[in-house]
């Protein structure tokens, strides 16, 4: 039997020591919002504390291995299913990231990572009043991950961070940026950011290409009819869609699909327009060149 979310006003976080500037960053972010911080020296210490205290958030230390953090997550969530746990690690494999997703980690940061990205993710975890996962992994190998994601911005940001970990170093960061653009587009225009809806996602790594497929629950659209999107701007007027959006009372926007298209080699929509495939060609890893 699992315990429910903490109902007390005083929020508590358990932080496993990383032993560097990350500890200070986490302390600053958590303390600025009045959270009480409990330090732990290592995962064994963290597990002992977590079995007696209902922490709202746990952040692991960078010194532990990825599989050790996933094991900690598994043990804690078996007793406290709603705990939000962010894994930080210096040593990991894409398989570790997938395991963390399957076990319901809130997020996963493998070095090197951006301090502001981590701070933003910690804030997102702090802002979740009673968290459940929102990401369901249907099947996953390092070469092919298939999952569904709840249609809200926080889940989108978490998923993008997970995929950064699954991505091999030879895959450009631009692929992740392009994926984020089409994912948010699918969640907004295909589901109006309705958290009861989900988008389906496949992330596939082939020898010479990486591909992302995103399918939203909406009725689709026609690319040619999107006069409010920069994708259909004439080459000599990159601002023409801005006037269309203003006339239609739309907020500033319209660059997502164009940016995604420019960051990958192919952007292909299904006939209905509610399914999109991104393809980026890459050089095969050195280990496979023979």
């Amino acid at each position, binding site marked *: 039997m699992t315990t429910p979310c903490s109902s007390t006003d005083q929020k508590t976080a358990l932080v496993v020591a990383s032993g*560097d500037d990350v500890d200070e960053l986490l302390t600053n*972010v958590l303390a600025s919002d009045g959270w009480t911080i409990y330090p732990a020296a290592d995962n064994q210490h963290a597990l002992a504390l977590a079995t007696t205290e209902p922490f709202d958030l746990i952040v692991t230390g960078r010194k532990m291995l990825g599989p050790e953090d996933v094991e900690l997550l598994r043990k804690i969530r078996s007793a406290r299913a709603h705990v939000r746990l962010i894994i930080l690690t210096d040593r990991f494999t894409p398989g570790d990231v997938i395991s963390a997703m399957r076990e319901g980690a809130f997020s996963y940061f493998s070095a*090197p990572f951006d301090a*502001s990205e981590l701070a933003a993710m910690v804030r997102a975890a702090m802002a979740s009043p009673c968290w459940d996962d929102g990401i369901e992994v249907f099947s996953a190998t390092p070469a092919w991950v298939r999952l569904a994601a709840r249609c809200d*911005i926080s889940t989108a940001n978490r998923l993008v961070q997970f995929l950064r970990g699954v991505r091999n170093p030879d895959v450009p960061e631009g692929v992740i940026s392009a994926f984020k653009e089409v994912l948010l587009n699918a969640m907004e225009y295909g589901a109006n950011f309705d958290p009861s809806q989900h988008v389906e996602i496949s992330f596939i790594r082939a020898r010479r290409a990486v591909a992302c497929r995103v399918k939203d629950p909406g009725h689709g659209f026609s690319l040619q009819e999107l006069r409010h999107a920069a994708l259909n701007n004439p080459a000599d007027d*990159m601002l023409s869609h801005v006037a269309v959006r203003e006339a239609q009372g739309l907020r500033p926007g319209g660059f997502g699909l*164009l940016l995604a298209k420019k960051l990958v080699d192919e952007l292909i929509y299904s006939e209905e327009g509610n399914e999109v495939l991104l393809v980026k060609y890459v050089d095969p890893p050195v280990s496979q060149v023979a």
Partner: protein
Amino acid sequence: MTGCKSDGDVVGLTISTRVRDDVTIVDLRGRSTIGESELLDRHLQKLLASGARKVLLNLTELTQVDSSGLSIIIATCASLRRHGGDLKMLCPSGHVLEVFRVLRLLGTITSFDDETQALASFRSLGHAASSS
């Protein structure tokens, strides 16, 4: 590299404003991506409402931008131009510069590497564009 890359601030986006002559310089620090871009939108809307017509966006310390942040910059630029003003950029670099480059927007919004030159470029608009 195995460390934690810090931009010196754990806040998503910080915005500060200063005025030189009749140009409003908006210093951005951090990221203008979905979730943070709304702050930039509100800030720029207030500037326009207060009569600012010559805006220089200092992107020196902006580390990331996505379509949400980009769209706000572009929409503000278009609005300023309709009112006889303009928006220009100072020192976009790294990922931010790459986004503007791949979208071929550097030909649409003028960018400078030097603040003095950027400020001087607004003189051609004259004082009439200083406020509504």
